[in-house]
C-alpha cells in the first residue's frame, strides 16, 4: 500500500516527473506522428493507385488486346466480378492555345464503364457551383469588368445553373452553351495539375472563365499509332482537337499532372486500334475478313467482399479460355492493382518502416534521459529509501516503488503523447495553414509534392503498439535506478547527504 501512496506522492513532485512525463509524451507523439504521416502517405498511394486502376487489370500495353469485348462478357459472367471496361492507354503530346506543349498519358475510356470500375465521377474536380462562384466573383470584381464582358459573364450563368457540369464529363458531350463555339469537337478531361498550378493552399484556379473565350478550352492531342508488330512508322502520327469539359483530381500528383481522359472510340481510331479489313501480305489484297478492334487494358472491379487475388485467378482462367479459342491472341498480363503498383507501394512501405525505426532509435535517447531522471530521483530519495527500509520495507518493495513510478510516468506520458499526436495528426493541415499565415513557414508546400495535403492515417493497432512500447520502455528506463535503489544499504542511505 505504501508503494502506491509514494508513487502518487512522487508523481506530484515538481520538475523531475514533469520532465520524465514530457520526455515520454514527446517520444510517443513523435513516433505516432511520423508513423501516421508515413502511414497516410502509404494509404494515399494505395488509394490513389487503386482509384486509377480498378481491382484487376488484363493488359497488352503496346500492340493491344483483341477480342476484348468477348473477354469482358465472360469476365462479367463470373460472380466474383462486378464490372469490367476496356481502356486504351497511350502516350502523346498535348498542346494548348498558349503554345505550351507537354508529354501526356492519354487514356481512352467509356466514362460510364470506367466509373463502374473506378470512382471516376468522384474525381471530377469542377462542379457547377465552382463556375457559378467564379462568375459571382467576376461580377463583384473591383475594378468592375467592362459592361460588355459583364453581360457576357452574366449570360453564361444560366448554362451552369441548370446543369450539373460534371455530367458532361460522364457522357463526354459538350455543354449546350459551348456547342456552337466548338463545332461538335470531342471532349476530354485532363488531370487538374496538367494546366493548373496549385496555390500554396493546395487549391486550383478555374481557368475556363467565360471571359477568356472558347479557344482556351481547346486542347490538341497528338499520338503515334503502333503497328500490331509493335513498331513505329507504319502509320502517320494522328492529331485531334478536344474540348476540356472538366478536370479530374485523383490526388496522385503524377497522374493529375500527366493524364488526359478522352472518348475510347476516338482514341481507338487515332491509334489505329479499331477494326480494319485484313490484307493478305503476299498479294496485298483484302482477305474479306475484318481484324478485331483492340484495346490496351481491361479493368475489372471485384464484387463486394471478393479478394482481388482470387478474382485474378478466375480471370486467368477466362483469359486462357479465350486465348485458346483465338490463336492470334497475344500474350496477356493479368495483374491486381497491388501487383501493378508493387514497386511504388513497396518503396513507400519500406520508407515508412525505416523512418519509424529511425525515430524509435531517436526515442532511445529520450528513454536514456528517463533513466537519468529516475536515477536523480533515486539519489534525491536516498534518505526515504533508508527510512522505508528501517520501517521494514523489503528490497523488492523499494524496487517496485520506482518500477511503479516508471509505469505511472509511462502511462501518463504516453497517453499525453497520444493525445497530442492525435490532435496534431487530425489537424496537421490546419496547423500548417496557421503556421503559414502567422510566420510564413510552410513545411509541406503543396505546389511541389505528390499530394496536395499532408496525408495522415492514425492506425489504432499501430498506435496501441507505440503506446505499449512507450510504457514498457519507461518501465525499462526505471529498471536500473530501481535496482540501484533496492541495492542501497539502508544505513548508508540514512547517512546519505
Amino acid at each position, binding site marked *: *500500500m505504501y508503494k502506491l*501512496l509514494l508513487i502518487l506522492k512522487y508523481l506530484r513532485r515538481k520538475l523531475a516527473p514533469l520532465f520524465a512525463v514530457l520526455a515520454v509524451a514527446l517520444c510517443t507523439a513523435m513516433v505516432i506522428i511520423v508513423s501516421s504521416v508515413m502511414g497516410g502517405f502509404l494509404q494515399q498511394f494505395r488509394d490513389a493507385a487503386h482509384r486509377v486502376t480498378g481491382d484487376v487489370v488484363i493488359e497488352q500495353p503496346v500492340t493491344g488486346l483483341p477480342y476484348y469485348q468477348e473477354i469482358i462478357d465472360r469476365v462479367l459472367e463470373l460472380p466474383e466480378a462486378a464490372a469490367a471496361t476496356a481502356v486504351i492507354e497511350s502516350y502523346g503530346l498535348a498542346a494548348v492555345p498558349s503554345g505550351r506543349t507537354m508529354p501526356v498519358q492519354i487514356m481512352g475510356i467509356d466514362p460510364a464503364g470506367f466509373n463502374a470500375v473506378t470512382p471516376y465521377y468522384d474525381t471530377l474536380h469542377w462542379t457547377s457551383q465552382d463556375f457559378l462562384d467564379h462568375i459571382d466573383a467576376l461580377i463583384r470584381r473591383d475594378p468592375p469588368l467592362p459592361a460588355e464582358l459583364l453581360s457576357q459573364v452574366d449570360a453564361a450563368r444560366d448554362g451552369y445553373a441548370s446543369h450539373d457540369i460534371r455530367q458532361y464529363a460522364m457522357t463526354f458531350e459538350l455543354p449546350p452553351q459551348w456547342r456552337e463555339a466548338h463545332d461538335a469537337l470531342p471532349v476530354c478531361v485532363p488531370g487538374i495539375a496538367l494546366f493548373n498550378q496549385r496555390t500554396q493552399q493546395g487549391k486550383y484556379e478555374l481557368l475556363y472563365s467565360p471571359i477568356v473565350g472558347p479557344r482556351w478550352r481547346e486542347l490538341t492531342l497528338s499520338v503515334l499509332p503502333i503497328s500490331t508488330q509493335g513498331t513505329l512508322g507504319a502509320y502517320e502520327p494522328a492529331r485531334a482537337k478536344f474540348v476540356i469539359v472538366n478536370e479530374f483530381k485523383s490526388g496522385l500528383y503524377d497522374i493529375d499532372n500527366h493524364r488526359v481522359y478522352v472518348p475510347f472510340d476516338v482514341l481507338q481510331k487515332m491509334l489505329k486500334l479499331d477494326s480494319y479489313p485484313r490484307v493478305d501480305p503476299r498479294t496485298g489484297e483484302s482477305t474479306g475478313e475484318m481484324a478485331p478492334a483492340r484495346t490496351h487494358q481491361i479493368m475489372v472491379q471485384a464484387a463486394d467482399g471478393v479478394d482481388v487475388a482470387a478474382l485474378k485467378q478466375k480471370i486467368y482462367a477466362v483469359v486462357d479460355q479465350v486465348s485458346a479459342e483465338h490463336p492470334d491472341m497475344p500474350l496477356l498480363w493479368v495483374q491486381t492493382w497491388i501487383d501493378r503498383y508493387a514497386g511504388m507501394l513497396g518503396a513507400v512501405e519500406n520508407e515508412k518502416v525505416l523512418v519509424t525505426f529511425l525515430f524509435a532509435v531517436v526515442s532511445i535517447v529520450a528513454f536514456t534521459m528517463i533513466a537519468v531522471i529516475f536515477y536523480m530521483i533515486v539519489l534525491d530519495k536516498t534518505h526515504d529509501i533508508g527510512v522505508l527500509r528501517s*520501517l521494514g520495507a523489503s528490497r523488492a518493495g523499494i524496487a517496485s516503488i520506482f518500477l511503479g513510478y516508471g509505469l505511472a510516468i509511462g502511462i501518463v506520458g504516453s497517453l499525453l503523447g497520444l493525445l497530442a499526436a492525435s490532435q496534431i495528426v487530425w489537424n496537421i493541415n490546419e496547423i500548417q495553414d496557421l503556421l503559414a499565415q502567422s510566420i510564413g513557414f510552410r513545411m509541406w508546400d503543396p505546389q511541389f509534392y505528390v499530394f496536395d495535403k499532408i496525408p495522415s492515417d492514425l492506425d489504432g493497432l499501430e498506435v496501441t503498439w507505440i503506446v505499449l512500447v512507450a510504457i514498457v520502455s519507461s518501465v525499462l528506463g526505471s529498471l536500473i535506478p530501481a535496482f540501484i535503489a533496492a541495492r542501497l544499504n539502508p544505513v548508508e542511505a540514512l547517512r546519505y547527504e
Partner: protein
Amino acid sequence: MSSQRHHAGDQANGALLHARDLHKHYHMGDEDLHVLRGVDLELTRGQWLAILGASGSGKSTLLHLLGGLDRPDDGTVHYDGRDIFRLRGGKLDRYRSAHVGFVFQFYHLLPELTALENVLIGAMVGCSILDWPTLRRARRARAKDLLAQLGLTERLRHRPNKLSGGERQRVAIARALINEPDVLLADEPTGNLDADTGKQILDVFRKLHGAGQTIVMVTHDTAIAAAADRTLRLQAGRLHHA
C-alpha cells in the same frame, strides 16, 4: 546448536533482545575501523536501556544491528530466542516492521507526506494492498490517537517542513510506535533539539516507559542517559557498566 542454547537461556532470563559477541568493521580505504569488538547485551522486556558513548564510538551501529538494519561481521542478535540474521524470505523485514521502532536523531520523515501519512506509512509497510482497506480505519484511528497523545492534533495535515524540530521528532516517535513494537530504538533522539524541546521528548520517553515500552536509547549526553533505568557505556568497541 549455539543459537538454540542462547534461545533457551534468553527465555529463562526473560531477555527480549540478546546480542552476543558482536563485531563490526568499517573499511575506509586501506584503513580497517573495528568499531564493535565483541559486544554482549541483554535487554529484558519493559527495560529502558541507555547506551552512552562518544561520537564515532559505534553507538548507532550497535542500534542498527539490534534493529536488523545492518549486519554484523561476527556475532548474533537474538530476538525472542531467534537469531534475526538467520531469518529468511523477508522475515527480517517483518522483524523491523512488526517488532522494532526506530527513532532517529534527524527524524527522517518523508518530506512529501503529511504528519499523519508519515505515521501511517509505518503501518502500511507491513500491510498488503489487499489487507489495507480492512485495516485502514483502525490504523488511521491509532495514528491520530498517537499524534494526539504527543500533542500534534493540530498538525495532522502539516508536512515536515511546516513543523518545528520537536514536532518532527514527536511525529517520528508516533511513526515508530504505530505497529506497537516490542522495542523502541532511539538514536540520539534529542541530539538535534534545543534543551527545552529535548526535555519534552525525554518526557515522552518517560511516559512510554511508564506504560511498559522497552526502549534502547543511544546518546552521548549523560544527563539524557540518566533518565533510563540502566546505562551502559560503549568504549573501545565494548560495552561497560557506566
